[in-house]
Each structure stands twice: as C-alpha cells, then as structure tokens.
C-alpha cells in the first residue's frame, strides 16, 4: 500500500519562493496611494427597483477601469456621483440580431456520436502595443490552441497552446517602426498609462508550445467558477429559462458583481458553452440566452478573422482589461448555426492607443473556432512542448 509522507506539505511550504513572502510586500510603493484613491470612491448604491431592460454597472468593469480610478484619472460620472455608479439604460434588443441567433439555435448541426475526447481547436489573435529600440508600435500576435476534453473514465484533458505562433507588425507604419527599432528579437509590452504591466517581454519570433492538464478528478470544465464534470455538462437544463437561472446561480457562486457585469458574463459563458460538448438543447438555449440579453444588436453580414462569411451580433461595450473600451461580438454561420468566432472591437480608444494608430472599430482580440467535435484519439502533444 502507498504510504503518505506526512511532511510533503511541509516540504512544499519550505519550498515557497522568497518572492512570494508577504513580508516583501509591506512596503509596496502603490499601497498608500491606492488606499487613498479607493477610500475616496463612493460606495455602490443599493439597486432601486426598476422596470424594463435596465443594466446596472454595479462595480468598475474590468481592470482598466479600476486602474484608472485608483490612479485618480477619473472621467465620466462614476466618481462624481455620491450615490455610486450610474445606471445605464440600454435600447431594447434589436429584432434582427434576435432573429439571427434564434435561427442559429434552430439550425445547429448534430454533433455526431460521442467519442472519448471533445476537441476544440481555436485560433487567437491579439493586437499588442509594444516598445523596442525607442519606438512604440503595435504587433499582431496570432496562435492556435487545441483543447482536448477527455469524457471517458481514465482519460486526461489537455490544453495545448502557443501553437503556430506568429508576431507581425500590424500595419505598414508599424512595420516601419519595427525596422527603425532595428528589427529586435524581443519586444516589451507597453505599460498601461497607470503604470502596470511594464517590463514584460515577448519574443518577436516563434515560441515553444505549452501544454496544461485541465482536468481534476472528474471535473473537466468550469462554468464561471464552478467546476463541472462531463456528466454535469450533460445534466445542464435544456430549457432556456432554466439554463439562464442555472448560469445566474453560477454567476453568484463565482463572486457575482465582483467579477464584472452580469450581461457580459452571461454573453461569454453562453458563447463558451456553444463550443462545448453539451446537449443540442443547451447549445440552442445558449444562443437564445444571448438573443435575450439587454442591448444585443445586429452587425449584419460580416467576415470572421479567417475570412469566413457570417452574421454578427454584439453586446453593449465595456471597459476591457487592456484595450480601453471594447465591444464583444459573435460571428455566426447563419446557414449552419455554428459559432465561427468571438472578438473584441475597440470603441472609444484612449489617447495612447490612438497615438499607436488604433482606431474605433479595430478588432483587438479574436478567437476563431477551427474545429469543434469528437475524436477517438488524445491530442498530439508536440515533443518540444513545455508543461
């Protein structure tokens, strides 16, 4: 029988890197500055009863908003309103977009017979402001990842990422700036105006693939912060109201308003579920949930980042962590109901982003689905992949 060593946690405790010793953080330069800024903020007001589709921004949305607040760069109504952040009333849902999503919900293809692994292959792009050699410019970082979710007993779930990475200057002007910088092999990500995120470097060329194990016991996926087994995923209610209620209970369990806005959260969770091994009813209801969100609007015919034709829908913009105000969009193949891509489009770029040539309407991040379906075999892990 396997004997448990009583000291393994102790050994781990002793192995804690010095850089994580809380004593090292007592003299943080930002600490007092942040405290003064935070305690100057108004308390969130209790939500008054309202009728109609009213979305309430209960806490600062995303890090960029919070960072702007704590740095004292407060704009708009949020800081000046002693009752807390303002309520934002949104227009009723656009009829077109609802139709697009409902049609998608009805035309979803059959997923085929269940097999050992659910494989989701995606291509990500991200527009990253960087600096090198005294120049500032924007690069487009592209990569693929392959998530393989083992649904049978004894199978592992793996996520292989950093595949086929390319980093290229975004525009001819960025290309010129990159050349002036001496075509460096390493780029430094540009810090936010508030001072965070400086000094982080990335190679301009390829990167080694990485692999993560993503299962824990029977759990293979998390809806919000709640881990779910494959059986849990199959047991999600297919009825749209019941599914919405289930997702909202998980929103509350994940910290609710502390993690951001409920509409944005539902939008992301529903979009993620559509690409997961769930029942046809759940996929269909996920589209219906998106269609019923306040402020959802139609973008008409669009092409996804891979050039595939589809129709687009968007929810109201929010402050993003890294790119100012962004609008989240879905691109759906209206013939098959397949979710082609999810992307973030820049709205109202701040001065730093404008100076780098980023404009209203530019796609700053995207995730395109290359393949979602069953496979008999585990994903191939490249031999040079790093765990």
């Amino acid at each position, binding site marked *: 029988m396997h004997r448990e060593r009583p000291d*393994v946690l102790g050994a781990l405790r002793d*192995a804690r890197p010095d850089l994580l010793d809380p004593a090292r953080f007592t003299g*943080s330069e930002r600490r007092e500055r942040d405290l003064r800024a*935070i305690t100057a903020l108004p308390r969130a007001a209790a939500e008054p009863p309202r009728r109609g589709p009213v979305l309430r921004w209960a806490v600062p949305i995303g890090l960029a908003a919070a960072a702007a607040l704590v740095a004292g760069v407060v704009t708009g109504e949020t800081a000046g309103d002693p009752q807390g952040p303002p309520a934002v009333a949104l227009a009723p849902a656009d009829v077109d977009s609802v139709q697009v999503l409902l049609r998608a919900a009805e035309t979803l293809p059959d997923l085929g017979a269940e097999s050992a692994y659910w494989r989701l292959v995606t291509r990500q792009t991200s527009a990253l402001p960087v600096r090198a050699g005294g120049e500032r410019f924007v690069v487009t*970082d592209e990569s693929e990842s392959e998530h393989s979710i083992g649904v049978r007993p004894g199978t592992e779930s793996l996520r292989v990422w950093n595949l086929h990475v390319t980093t290229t200057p975004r525009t001819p002007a960025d290309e010129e700036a990159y050349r002036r910088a001496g075509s460096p092999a390493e780029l430094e990500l540009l810090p936010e105006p508030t001072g965070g995120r400086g000094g982080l470097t990335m190679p301009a060329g390829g990167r080694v693939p990485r692999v993560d*194990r993503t299962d824990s016991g029977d759990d293979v996926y998390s809806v919000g912060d709640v881990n779910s087994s494959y059986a849990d995923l199959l047991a999600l209610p297919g009825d749209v109201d019941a599914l919405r209620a289930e997702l909202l209970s998980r929103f509350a369990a994940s910290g609710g308003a502390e993690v951001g806005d409920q509409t944005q959260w539902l939008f992301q969770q529903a979009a993620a579920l559509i690409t997961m091994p769930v029942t046809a009813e759940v996929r269909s209801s996920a589209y219906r949930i998106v269609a019923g969100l306040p402020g959802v609007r139609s973008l008409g015919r669009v092409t996804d980042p891979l050039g595939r034709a589809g129709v687009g829908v968007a929810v109201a913009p929010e402050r993003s962590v890294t790119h100012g105000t962004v609008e989240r969009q879905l691109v759906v193949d209206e013939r098959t109901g397949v979710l082609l891509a999810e992307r973030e489009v820049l709205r109202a770029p701040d001065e730093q982003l404008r100076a780098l040539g980023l404009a209203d309407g530019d796609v700053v991040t995207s995730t395109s689905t290359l393949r979602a379906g069953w496979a008999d075999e585990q994903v191939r892990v490249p031999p040079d992949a790093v765990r």
Partner: protein
Amino acid sequence: MIDAHRFGELYSDCYPRVLAYATSRVGRQLGEDVTSETFTVAWRRREVLPSPPLPWLLGVARNIVREALRGEDRQWALAAAAAEREVLGTDPASDVVERAAVLQALGSLSEPDRELLTLVAWHGLSAKDAARVLGCATATLTVRLHRARRRLERATAAAELSAPPRPAVALKEN
C-alpha cells in the same frame, strides 16, 4: 458598517497577502493592478464584508485573474506563464535536491491541484478558508486536498529519483 479607519486597518493587514497571491498568479506588476481592483471591490462592498476578510479577498482576486485569463488575452497569458516560470523555476546550482524535487513535482500536477496546494502551503490558508476562496464545501475541499497531497507526494518521490534535478519548467523560451 466599516468606516475608512477600520478599512485602512483591514487594508494594512491583508494587502501583503493579497498582493503575494496575485503576484503568484500573474507577476508583481499585474498583481498590483489585481490587488487594487480587489480592494476597490471590498470598499464598495464594505457593508457586507465577511470576517475574517482574507479568504473573501483572495476569492475576489482569484476571480479577477480567472476572468482576465478566460478572455485568452495574450498579455495576461504571457504574464501568467512568466509568473509560473518564476515561481516554479529552480536553480540547479544552489537548490537542495528536496526543494527542486518538490517544485518539479508541483509543476507536474494539474492546475487545480497546484492551486489548492499552494493556497494551503504558500498562502497559509486553513482547509476551511481555502474552501471559501474556491467556493466549495469544506468537506469537499478536505477530500480534494487529501488527493492532491498524495499526488504531490508521488510526484515528489518520482522527481527525487530523476537526478540530477532539473528545472520544473524551461526557464527560457526561444
């Protein structure tokens, strides 16, 4: 109701541990942003802050990091990968075999196992408090911790057999 003075005390008490946690996930610089947002949320919710506040604060910080990483944002992914390399990296020249082995073993475990073990061993939480951070029942957590600990123990034994000790993860990407 917590007033500004009491909030200041709570902030002084908890700030280093929240920042240490955030740093372990995404590095010092983004970690400071995460910590700021965490206490901003706490200030806005100060009427309902639980006691002790630390597990709640770490839960908020964890959610902020998770939501940022869920977006597949390259900057956050890079920061998280860099933080992981820094935290799990060992120095073969100076590290004792046992330390290198346990870090290598930790690096070989699944992300949920690593998270649970480090919340307890590195961030000093009890099983009950770790359960609050992770949003599960204490009984569930106790079972998970027991299993994770056994997996760590096996992986450590395996790592000790493989000499010389290697870094848990590659320290350089090409």
